């Protein structure tokens, strides 16, 4: 009820997982990847040995249309520094239309989060196809760099 100021940690108080303690801070990006395109694109990046920062943790979903905007808020609550939702290019959806709903939902969500004061670079939605290993690499690398520049996320973050 009263302003819970403790819930807003100062950025330097945020620590990464204990194992990483001696290492410099590495952003934590939660990625939602559709099984047919982006997850396959990430697999292709692996097959092609395309290196990118170990910041992203991919959660596999059948279709980007499965990603509920509430998942995104939950990730920020629990300490994600960035969230990526990625799926097939419009027209390429394995389920033909799922990503059109993704597009509507997250165009809206992106604007709403920005309105709530989130930096738009922390929440991204991208189309990455199964053949776009290099694009996956580039998106993750770019996002990691952007977030490194922004520093750890403290907004919406629940410290309990």
């Amino acid at each position, binding site marked *: *009820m*009263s*302003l*819970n100021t403790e*819930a*807003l940690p100062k950025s330097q108080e945020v620590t990464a997982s204990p194992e990483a303690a001696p290492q410099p801070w590495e952003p934590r990006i939660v990625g939602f990847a559709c099984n047919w395109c982006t997850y396959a694109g990430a697999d292709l990046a692996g097959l092609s040995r395309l290196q990118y920062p170990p910041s992203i943790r991919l959660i596999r979903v059948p279709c980007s249309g499965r990603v509920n*905007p*509430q998942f995104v*808020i*939950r990730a920020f*609550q629990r300490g994600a520094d960035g969230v990526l939702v990625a799926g097939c*290019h*419009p*027209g390429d959806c394995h389920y033909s*239309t799922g990503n*059109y*709903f993704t*597009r*509507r*939902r*997250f*165009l*809206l*969500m*992106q*604007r*709403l989060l*920005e*309105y*709530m*004061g*989130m*930096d738009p670079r922390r929440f991204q*939605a*991208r*189309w990455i196809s199964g053949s776009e290993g290099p694009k996956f690499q580039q998106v993750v690398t770019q996002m990691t760099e952007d977030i490194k520049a922004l520093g750890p996320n403290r*907004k*919406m*973050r*629940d410290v*309990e």
Partner: protein
Amino acid sequence: MITEKMRAAAKELLEKGEVETVIGWEKGTFWYNSTPAFISKPEQADRLVFDEFCANNLAKYLLDYRNADGKIAVFVKGCDARAVNRLLQDNQVKREKVYLIGIPCPGMKEAPKTGAAQDTASLPLLAKCQSCATPNPVIYDQLLGDPVPAREVPNRFAGVEALEAKGADEKYERWGKLFSECIRCYACRNVCPACNCRECAFDANGLNWLGKQNNLQENQMFNITRAMHVAGRCIECGECERVCPMGLPLMDINRKIIKDLNELFGSYDAGLNLEDRPPLGHYKLDDPEKFM
């Protein structure tokens, strides 16, 4: 005088047995309180009133009568009528089970600050009525009185635009302060005609959508999710904001979403008719593309 017509209409419907209950308004504790009334006998019809304080959107009470045997009559202002459309489009009530008595609405007034007797004309319009573009019911079986002329409506997105222009941290701080005030009484949700789930996701057992803690983060989750759930479905009756005991500017969120939906996917006003589908329920191939 609308009140007389209301009473006559209610009496007639009940006497003829056409409806089993009439939902309207009656006077409450003080002269500036008008409160929902449920009339089921003709002789009670004289309790009904229509004055500047009948702000309550009555449509949502129809949910309480889903299993009624007979028809339910309800008085609808412009916003109540849009709320009925919301419920009809969401398949929550059946058109043939409700009888809608439309009342063109001159706009509702705020309760006086002190409670002292004063001329109602001098009271300001309720915030929710100031930007109302549909004072006349958009769906009804019977209309009491003549439609009121459309009011000059200020840009209803002005507040949103002002906020959008602020910096990220400033925005976050503002919302943080507001959401910290939220006591999670759920009045905003419970009064909302678009929140018509049988059981709210937040109330469900075992689902982990929202923690019960009252802290900024969970309050953010609640308020953002509530807004997303009514996205494209909000009929802008402004009841959420009106009933918030903490006075949170909830329409600033709802309107932001409406503004964005209009900009992104084409202009849409929920509840004006039954045909146009909410923007998050369909898509167009040529929707804006930002995710390449």
